[in-house]
């Protein structure tokens, strides 16, 4: 998968986040890495099937995930990443990936579908995906660092 083919996912990220309360979505870097990724705190795992297969992972550290959930819940205090906060961040993952399917279909990749998000909380753990290379896009969303890992083939 070449770096340009992640554009629909980047567009999805940039178009969904302003709809859920975020103002500034900045893409900081795009890079290619191997199949093993470090979990810096929280990973949202969403499987993708259709003409492209694989996984999209969205990773944040715990503090960022709490800030992210708080922002999604109109500034509500989120001292712990509890059920409500977990539901909020995973819903964001679901919305971004569902929107990415629409963006892909507009660029001619039709018939993609996604699985519901699974949340894996555990800083320092590793994730091995089923593709040899992953494209990692680092975003800064209202000063919150969010990484999107795209492993599709």
């Amino acid at each position, binding site marked *: 998968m070449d770096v340009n083919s992640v554009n629909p996912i980047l567009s999805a990220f940039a178009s969904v986040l302003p*709809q*859920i309360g975020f103002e500034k979505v900045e893409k900081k870097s795009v890079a290619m890495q191997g199949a093993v990724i470090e*979990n810096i705190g929280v*990973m949202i*795992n*969403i*499987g*993708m*099937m*259709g003409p492209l*297969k*694989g*996984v999209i*992972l969205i990773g944040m550290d715990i503090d960022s995930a709490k800030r992210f959930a708080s922002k999604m*819940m109109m500034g509500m205090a989120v001292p712990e990443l509890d*059920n409500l906060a*977990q*539901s*909020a961040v*995973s*819903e964001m993952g679901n*919305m971004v990936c*569902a*929107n990415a399917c*629409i963006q892909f279909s507009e660029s001619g990749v039709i018939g993609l*579908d*996604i*699985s*519901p*998000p*699974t*949340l*894996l*909380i*555990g*800083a*320092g*753990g*590793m*994730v*091995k*995906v*089923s*593709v040899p290379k992953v494209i990692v896009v680092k975003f800064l969303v209202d000063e919150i660092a969010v990484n999107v890992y795209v492993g599709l083939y």
Partner: protein
Amino acid sequence: MGEIGNMSAFRVMVVDDSPFSRTILADALQEGGCEVVGEADSLESLIEIYTNCKPDLVTMDIAMPDADGFECSKVLRFHDPAAKIILVSSMKDDETEAEARRVGVMGYVQKPVDVETLMRVINAVMSPDSLFAKLKNGGIDCFKEALAQNITRMTKTTATFSDKEPPATYISQGITVVIGIIGKYPGSVILDLSMETAEKMAHVLLRRAGKNREEVVSMAAEFANVVAGVACSMLNKKDKAFGLRVAPPSVFYGKATEVISPNIQVQHVYADTDFGQIYLHVGFKKGSILWM
């Protein structure tokens, strides 16, 4: 605006900024045998009225000043993930439908509304989904069968299932394989085992010790992939309408990790094998959207 009393089958709340549209829709709903229990004209009053009148279903207009129907649906579903929303709008095109799916709307009726179509959509959204119930109640049995069958097939040993209830907050034993499922009802399956269990399994499967952690982790991913694939095939054979397919696995390992499937009803169980305990976690959600 606010709560309105009446008697009938489904209790419906109407969200529309136009008093005229609300009246027309309320009339159609009543004619169809529904009870209109609340009306809201904007995002501002939506949650309060919804909370007070506790409707079975909400009809939502799209074009409204300030927050539109998508925005309102998002807020409502965030407040109550189980909220059943159908869009009632004059707009009906691919883009609008895609957006509606994205915000979790379950049905769509175009204005001007005729009672028959409206009630067909409402009945479809409200009727218990027996196919989904089949998956929700019996789905895990296929995964248990696939797990036991493949332990036997691949290692010539047996697996039994423990009565011990896994904890609600589940922390990985060492290796967690996450596999997304796509189909009429999307879901996920998770297999979790300790590194030691995986090493013992790898030893039998490879007829030698695993060379390194990488090889052991890959074995766990492949085993889970086979179990998920076989189980989904079994379910598809039971009813081809499921159309289930498995996405490639992701394997989490190396640190204590909490595993959560938010907003999904999960069934989970421990399997006891000669190699150690394997945790199996299966969940599906209703992804079907009924369009008319």
